[in-house]
């Protein structure tokens, strides 16, 4: 056995790769070899550690020191000072380690402040090593489920846990599984929706990049519970690293016999195929997604029949989001009661958020359901950048609502936000400071929808085009107050008449921006 003195974890995800993580990794390995430390210091790749917008990020264990914005030029100093001489390079160190960056396996007080269920292993294990995933509880829940639980026991546990869909619609997962399990058909499919298209959302990508085995395990359990023997992961084609890691994880799981026939001697067979999407927003809608897997144009289907009865190739199909599925192993392993300890009465568990915009430390966090917007922005996000004032936050992506200062202390969960005509959606929180032009913001949202409208139904196809005309006029100070009224009228009509949630949800950003900033918008037309 070789004694390893330090482990340097380098976060390799799409963002850090752009920032030059591969070059830093090369430089690190070379410099460590040059100093003769190769036997004692190991460089490991890991997924995102939850720090965005800070260039290449390294974590040195056992000290747990985070270095940010590292370039190859700094590597020699880092190796000599920290790894050879043991002196932390304070200049490059992450000054204040916010709560969310504390990753620990021990149940300390900090763990209580950051309950990690979905992101438990992200930034901690090497996502390309199935052994490390197994050491970090990977496949334990699948082993338990397949060897000692009946399908209906699993469904009862998931139902009791109160897990709801984390993609935005918040449909109870246990109920969905129950419906699917009761459909009598020898062929069923389970599909993981990893077509994360909501602007500002990148949680599923980081989950897949950081812990792909968790998803595989969850799909095995879901397949066993519902009777599906074939799984598909529909993933955005741009998510190159997620696809690469997921495909490696699937291959490794196959070679270990965790996918394939007779898994854990249970007689249950299961396998997973990765399908790449071409990046259409509408394909995040489950029936459009199914069409796309079938090789057709991504258009939503008529409902009913729901996918649960007739989905992929007309067979019963369960569609679950990445984050939703990633909660399953914890529920099976530790029980529904434990899961219900987190969150609110109506919404148990945690939620993964991506915080971005005018905040000091943008990034990825996981907190309990019911955490207030104030806590998320000011505690985890480090407050508003450059000491400015909070104006509003667009919560839930483009199909979400603007929330103003009066919403800062509302407990955020799926049920509660609905009461305020808002939606948690995908969990993107785009924060805007006092200098943000709300008309500009709304303009970019509406342009996004026009671009992404699939053209299948008239209200959405024409509605988005008309809305863009109106907002362009308003933004150019050429509009009238009638144009402002038109925004509401058209989006209301779209809400009532559009075929799928794409057109139905425009009302959220439009009406919420008018609720808070009507004067500001009207000022542009008078």
């Amino acid at each position, binding site marked *: *056995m070789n004694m390893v*003195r330090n*482990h340097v974890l380098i976060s390799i995800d799409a963002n850090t790769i752009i920032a030059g993580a591969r070059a830093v990794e090369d430089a690190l390995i070379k410099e460590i070899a040059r100093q003769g430390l190769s036997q004692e210091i190991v460089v490991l790749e890991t997924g995102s550690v939850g720090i965005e917008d800070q260039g290449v990020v390294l974590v040195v264990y*056992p000290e747990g020191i985070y270095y940010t914005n590292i370039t190859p030029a700094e590597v020699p100093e880092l190796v000599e000072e920290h790894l050879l*001489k043991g002196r932390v390079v304070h200049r490059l160190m992450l000054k204040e380690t916010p709560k969310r960056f504390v990753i620990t396996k021990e149940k300390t007080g900090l763990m209580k402040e950051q309950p990690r269920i979905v992101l438990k292993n992200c930034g901690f294990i090497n996502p390309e090593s199935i052994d*490390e995933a*197994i050491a970090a509880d990977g496949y334990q829940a699948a082993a338990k489920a397949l060897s000692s639980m009946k399908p209906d026991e699993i469904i009862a546990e998931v139902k009791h846990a109160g897990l709801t869909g984390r993609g935005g619609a918040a449909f109870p997962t246990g109920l969905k599984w129950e419906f699917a399990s009761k459909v009598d058909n020898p062929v069923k499919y389970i599909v993981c929706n990893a077509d994360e298209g909501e602007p500002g959302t990148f949680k599923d990508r980081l989950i897949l990049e950081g812990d792909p085995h968790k998803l595989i395990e969850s799909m095995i359990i879901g397949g066993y519970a519902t009777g599906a023997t074939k799984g598909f992961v529909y993933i955005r084609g741009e998510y190159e690293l997620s696809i690469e890691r997921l495909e490696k994880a699937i291959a490794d799981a196959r070679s270990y016999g965790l996918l394939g026939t007779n*898994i854990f001697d249970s007689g249950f067979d299961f396998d997973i195929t990765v399908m790449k999407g071409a990046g259409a927003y509408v394909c995040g809608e489950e029936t459009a997604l199914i069409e796309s897997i079938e090789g057709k144009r991504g258009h939503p289907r008529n409902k009913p029949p729901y996918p649960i009865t007739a989905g992929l190739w007309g067979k019963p199909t369960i569609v679950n989001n990445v984050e939703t599925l990633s909660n399953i192993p914890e529920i099976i392993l530790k029980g529904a009661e434990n899961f219900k300890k987190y969150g609110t009465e109506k919404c148990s568990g945690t939620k993964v958020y991506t915080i971005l915009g005018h905040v000091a430390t943008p990034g990825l966090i996981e907190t309990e359901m019911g955490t207030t917007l104030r806590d998320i922005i000011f505690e985890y996000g480090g407050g508003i950048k450059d000491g400015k004032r909070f104006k509003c936050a667009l919560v839930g992506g483009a199909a979400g609502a603007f929330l103003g200062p009066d919403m800062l202390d509302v407990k955020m969960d799926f049920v509660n936000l609905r009461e305020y005509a808002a939606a948690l959606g995908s969990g993107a929180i785009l924060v805007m400071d006092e200098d943000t032009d709300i008309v500009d913001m709304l303009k970019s949202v509406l342009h996004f929808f026009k671009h992404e409208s699939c053209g299948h139904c008239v209200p959405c196809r024409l509605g988005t085009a008309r809305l863009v005309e109106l907002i362009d006029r308003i933004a150019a100070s050429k509009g009238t107050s009638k144009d402002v009224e038109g925004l509401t009228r058209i989006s209301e009509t779209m809400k009532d008449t559009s075929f799928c949630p794409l057109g139905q949800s425009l009302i959220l950003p439009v009406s919420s921006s008018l609720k808070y900033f009507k004067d500001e918008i009207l000022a542009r037309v008078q």
Partner: protein
Amino acid sequence: MNLEDLKKIREKAEKDIELRQKKTRIKIVVGMGTSGIAAGAREVLKTFVEEISNRNLLDVVVTQTGEKGLASQEPMIEIFEEGKPVIVYGNIDKKKAQGIVENHIVGGRPVMEYVIEAK
């Protein structure tokens, strides 16, 4: 793959992860300032790492620190063990390091003749 196989993989891989986390009984800190390195701390550090590898001591961590300000005693090392006083050794070389691993780390008896401070 059956449950037994999974357990085996888990146990093996857990060890590897434990190593980079902090589940340690003893921490050996070697002073690696300029004077420490000049006096041979690099070799001392290497010796500790080798000895601990050879003996497969999973719960011992070797790390380094900077100058202690007592240049005449370099290479200096400190041994941290929970519930026990911190032992500081001075003027350590390869041979003494081997003795410390054998007697102190494994045997639990500090090598009194090299101890310069216990705090």
